[in-house]
């Protein structure tokens, strides 16, 4: 892992076309960053990514009998 120090207003560059600028330091433990990346490069907060991962992992644990339970539940559901 690369660790580097930047001041407010300073930037670092990732590859050819991504820049990250320190915009502001808010209080003692927050930093506001400005990210410039091509529209083809997705940028997400890590915790959102981890949440989706966990959701996928749990969903994939379902067995083949799952639909036998779900389908009757749907048919007795007033909404569908």
């Amino acid at each position, binding site marked *: 892992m690369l660790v580097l120090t930047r001041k407010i207003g300073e930037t670092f560059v990732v590859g050819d076309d991504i820049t990250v600028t320190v915009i502001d330091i808010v209080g003692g433990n927050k930093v506001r960053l400005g990210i410039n990346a091509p*529209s*083809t490069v997705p940028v997400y907060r890590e915790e959102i990514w981890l949440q*989706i*991962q966990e959701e996928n992992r749990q*969903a994939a644990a*379902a067995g083949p009998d*799952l639909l036998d339970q*779900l389908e009757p*539940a749907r048919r007795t559901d007033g*909404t569908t």
Partner: protein
Amino acid sequence: MAPLTIESTRFGTVEIDDAIVLTLEQGMIGFPDHRRYAILKQREDSVFMWLHSVEDPSLAFPIVLPWVFYWDYEVDLSDADMAAIGVERADQISIYCVVNVGADVRAATINLFSPIVVNNGDRRARQVINTIDGYSTRDQLFRETDSPTPVAMHESDAPNVTVLTTGG
């Protein structure tokens, strides 16, 4: 068009047409090593389907068409996601959402936050993040609220689905 055999820990040996195979270049989020999937339907009359790995016999995600449960569901795709699967218009895609079912079936949830988007043409697909506010990875599948228009599922909504058995 060629037959392809999937070995499934859930369903045994399943023969599909290789033309229906989806390619998720990034894999499902958290599963980057598995990129080729087929959509299987356990029963003809069910709205529940499986996004089943072609490579890993045990890897499959229960999925549905979101509109069956959320008739007013909306998706906004980023330019990056559209470009990644090579589509430009809404009529070129199909959208599925992963369903998460625990011990209590009535408490099942649907991930409306990160749907799977499929290019209906070349079958490239991607699990994306819906940029419309208000959806979560765990919305209730069965809601208490009323639904003005019950939504039926049509073949054209989910093309190229392999039905494992009929009837039931």
